[in-house]
């Protein structure tokens, strides 16, 4: 039994017949016999004694070099570089504003991202962002399977880093395996201790970097170093140190196999044209050593290109045997491609026995058919289109938004009021949000009902008798606005009104519409 693959298909029900297309037609006859014999009461006793849980098989991933390893190094440096150093980038926003490029400012209730500032009431941008993120994930999946899992997922990237540290201290696969079998010596204790120390330091730095996104980074670093930071900062550092250490140091592939929902979701989203890391069994079976293959060929028997060196299994960070076909444990990081290519180069066979490919192409080559790579198809075009549409809507909304906002809510009870002289009055709650960093005086104008009397509670009026509403910096103010008309109204009148606020320089700041309701 192979070390890989077993845990990978947790709980899966496999279609035994569908998996073996070469099955003979006589199986149909066997089925009939099977059905006839179903009542045979022959249950072995030992069966129910199997344990309900399984011990974990420790994985010792071997070092490998090649194209995909280099790609993974590059992505690791870029992603971790962004994560650890982004909070230190400065961005000048003028006085009274933080100068940190990326900042989630909870006390100030703003999110800063370079030139973009998001208010809490603009949290719908987050919805758009989540849609784009989900679609990007789906698109990656439709193009080349688990690109996210293999190269970009934090679990993968940090695990990669932790494995590298482990290899650096405890040696590569063979050395580490041997060392783990030896009794505890001073040297082994020292190596294990220093490994965990390094892991904890990385985890601690990871937790520390996280909180820098929530406050001024240089100040926070100084406060943390002098133990003057708020207790919640230390709490979060502790929490994230623990999760990073546990997930990247201890849990590793268990997260992908047992905890993460994405493998299950992506399996339901994929199709037959999505590229996946595949073992190209069209290059011949059975697998045999160089010598054995030569003997087989001499006797006119077939032998595959795979020499069963198991390098692809040894380098796998999740302990999968890719030659068993696509399975849930495979995060498709491409390291087995590098391992196999190295071996193929040595023995002078063509590279990419393991490669990004599809089952369709493998079968096509097996039967002499045409291979096809269809990156552009309905699925990928649709995902790309959704990303483009949502992205453009967000960009448009962001580019055309105002630094002030106006919302008008009509009184619901009563909808209108008859005054003692018979005049009709409507009340509105007008909310004005001022996103400027200083107090703004907005002039409120209401049009649509000629000759109506407009009254605001608690505001001054300008020389033309229009209400001036002062709203403090970064504040939203609610004012009650009362519109009264003495003109005769049609029965069940409902007249559209336009509310607009003018900024100090006489420009329309924001517009909202509502209605004037009569009896």
């Amino acid at each position, binding site marked *: 039994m192979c070390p890989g693959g077993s845990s990978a298909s947790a709980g899966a029900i496999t279609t*035994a017949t569908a998996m*073996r297309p070469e099955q003979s037609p*006589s199986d149909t006859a*066997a089925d009939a016999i099977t059905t006839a014999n179903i009542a045979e009461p022959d249950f072995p006793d030992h069966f129910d004694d199997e344990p309900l849980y399984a011990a974990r098989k420790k994985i010792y991933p071997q070092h490998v070099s090649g194209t995909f390893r280099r790609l993974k190094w590059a992505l690791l440096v870029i992603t971790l570089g962004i994560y650890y150093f982004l909070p230190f980038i400065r961005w000048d926003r003028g006085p009274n504003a933080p100068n940190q490029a990326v900042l989630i400012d909870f006390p100030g209730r703003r999110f800063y991202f370079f030139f973009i500032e998001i208010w809490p009431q603009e949290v719908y941008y987050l919805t758009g962002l989540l849609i784009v993120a989900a679609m990007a994930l789906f698109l990656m999946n439709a193009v080349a399977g688990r690109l996210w899992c293999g190269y970009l997922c934090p679990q993968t990237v940090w695990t990669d880093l932790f494995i590298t540290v482990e290899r650096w201290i405890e040696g590569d696969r063979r050395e580490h395996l041997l060392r783990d079998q030896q009794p505890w010596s001073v040297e082994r204790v020292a190596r294990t201790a220093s490994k965990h120390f390094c892991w904890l330091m990385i985890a601690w730095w990871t937790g520390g970097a996280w909180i820098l996104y929530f406050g001024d980074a240089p100040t926070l670093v100084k406060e943390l170093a002098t133990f003057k930071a708020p207790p919640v900062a230390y709490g979060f550092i502790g929490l994230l140190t623990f999760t990073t250490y546990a997930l990247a140091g201890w849990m590793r592939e268990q997260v992908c196999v047992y905890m993460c929902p994405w493998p299950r979701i992506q399996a339901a989203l994929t199709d037959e044209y999505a590229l996946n890391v595949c073992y190209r069994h069209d290059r011949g079976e059975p697998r045999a050593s160089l010598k054995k293959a030569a003997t087989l060929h001499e006797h006119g028997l077939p032998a595959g290109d795979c020499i069963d060196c198991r390098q692809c299994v040894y380098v796998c960070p999740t302990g999968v045997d890719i030659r*068993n076909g696509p399975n849930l444990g495979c995060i498709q990081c491409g390291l087995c491609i590098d391992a196999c290519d190295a071996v193929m180069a040595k023995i002078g066979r063509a590279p990419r026995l393991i490669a990004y490919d599809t089952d369709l192409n493998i079968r096509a080559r097996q039967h002499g058919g045409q291979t096809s790579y269809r990156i552009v198809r309905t699925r990928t075009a649709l995902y790309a289109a959704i990303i483009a549409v949502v992205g453009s809507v967000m960009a448009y909304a962001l580019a055309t938004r105002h630094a002030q906002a106006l919302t008008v809510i009509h009184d619901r009870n009563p909808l209108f009021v008859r005054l003692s002289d018979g005049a009709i009055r409507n009340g509105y709650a007008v909310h004005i949000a001022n996103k400027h960093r200083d107090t703004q005086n907005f002039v409120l104008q209401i049009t649509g009902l000629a000759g109506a009397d407009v009254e605001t*509670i608690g505001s001054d009026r300008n020389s033309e008798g229009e209400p001036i509403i002062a709203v403090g910096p970064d504040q939203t103010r609610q004012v009650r606005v009362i519109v009264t008309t003495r003109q005769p109204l049609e029965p069940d009148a409902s007249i559209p009104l336009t509310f607009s606020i003018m900024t100090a320089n006489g420009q329309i700041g924001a517009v909202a519409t509502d209605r004037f309701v009569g009896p």
Partner: protein
Amino acid sequence: MSGQTERRDQLAHKPALESSHQTATTGHEWDGLQELNTPLPRWWLWLFYATIVWAVGYWIVYPAWPLLSSYSNGVFNWHSRAAVSSDLAALQTQRSAMTSRLAAASLAEIESTPEMLDFARALGGRAFADNCAPCHGAGGGGAKGYPNLVDNDWLWGGNLDAISQTITHGVRAGDEQGRQGSMPAFGRDGMLKRDDVLAVADYVRSLSGLSTTAGADLSRGAKIFADNCAVCHGPDGKGNRALGAPNLTDQIWLYGSDNQTIFDGIWNGHGGVMPAWGSKLDPVTIKALTVYVHTFGGGE
């Protein structure tokens, strides 16, 4: 191995190796579908035990077990009631800067200072929804017999002091300083005959220009009005706020303006009650409520 033997082995529920996964099966098979036997990882089992231990911790630190006359208190001595009280206290502390300003300021000062006005309207709005809305409506629109607070017609006066007085001491609620005075039951108590009541009802409608019954003798109604009603509602029917007698000449009717409703009012009298909130709400809340009601739009 022939297909037949293989299947027979599976039927015997023998764990076998599934061909493509190299994984043990449970031996079960349905229409060619086999079930792989992949047991739970052991660490997951330990997590399960850890949650049980965690649950025991809850029993110890929080109130958990019912006892004969009480319950296990828990070593944290945590109570939901105490938690609510401390939350309320924290809220009051948070508001104290503004509430102390409100307590020190006069009603007119509160209304003329935007900062205090906004706070009072917010605080008053919550108090109104909790205490006043059941009768006066969520937006103060009132209902039959419950005055509309948004219009500009006031039974007991619509300036800040009058509203504050009404809220604090109530209307006909037994409070000595409360609003007194009620509409007698002229018909039921035998003060007026049925014909007289009908005549005066027509006359009352005519005061605000409403149509009257055909052939109604308005001068008779006027005479009866002058003798019985004018003492409270005034000789011209414009009402008297000292007694809470409504203005009968305007377009606003507390109970309704149709003939039958007016007749019923004269026959049976009126005397709606509003509780005295001074004993239930603190002075700052009453100030906030006063400002809130005053700024509905009809305040004087």
